[in-house]
């Protein structure tokens, strides 16, 4: 029994350790320099109301997020839909607004999603 508990404990510690390291690794560094006002993304009825957002390339953006659901959501921007390389991960909020500074994007198409509900997705086009 002690052995079983020890194994179970090790699995849990490993899982929590992985979570902590993932959390630290997933946070992109904060952008520096001037920031321009960016678009607002609204979450309502468990989906993003705007799924394609155009932004200006080459300058930091202050992205506004308005979560009108009681369920928690955020806006997390990744290089592509594989969602393995984060560019900007916004705060998870419920029934609240949050701003996030997105580092200057090169011209191109980027993927964004809610990190809590992975089926809530959209595209950011930087021009």
């Amino acid at each position: 029994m002690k052995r079983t508990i020890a194994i179970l404990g090790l699995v849990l510690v490993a899982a929590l350790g992985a979570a902590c390291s993932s959390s630290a690794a997933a946070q992109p560094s904060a952008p520096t320099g001037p920031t321009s006002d960016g678009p607002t993304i609204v979450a309502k009825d468990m989906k993003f109301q705007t799924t394609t957002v155009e932004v200006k390339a080459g300058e930091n953006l202050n992205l506004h997020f308005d979560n009108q659901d009681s369920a928690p959501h955020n806006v997390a921007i990744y290089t592509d839909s594989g969602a393995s390389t984060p560019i900007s991960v916004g705060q998870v909020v419920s029934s609240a607004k949050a701003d996030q500074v997105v580092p200057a994007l090169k011209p191109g198409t980027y993927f964004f999603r809610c990190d809590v509900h992975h089926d809530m997705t959209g595209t950011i086009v930087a021009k």
Partner: protein
Amino acid sequence: MSPRSSLRPLDVVIRIAIVGLILGTAYIHSTLGGLLFTLNALGYVVAAVAIAIPLGIAIRYRWFIRLGLMGYATTAIVAWAVQGPYYTTAYIAKAIEVTLIALLAIDFARMDGNPVTVIKSELGLLAAKLGRRPVTGQAGV
């Protein structure tokens, strides 16, 4: 140590704590929205009923419910560790689940004894019910 069905005062305290923790994580998951989290919350509610209900069949298979719930909570923790998201409410839910697993392990040890012995015994009973005899070492029998 053989399984027992009578509850001592400490067993009752542990069981109440287990049900409270299950309902706590069920509530958190129910507030997250989406089908997956709602089903997860429902699964926890069913588990809370199964772990507490004084019904003959539930008492008889409580060992299985405990192990199943430990597996269920461990799966939820590992799935979260892999895909996140990592924010305060999630950490609270996972802390509850870790505590829940620990209490379930204690409850199992107090009520059922060694899990390997219990599983072997139950498999033996199942084999007997199915009309088979445990292997005796006689080849070709």
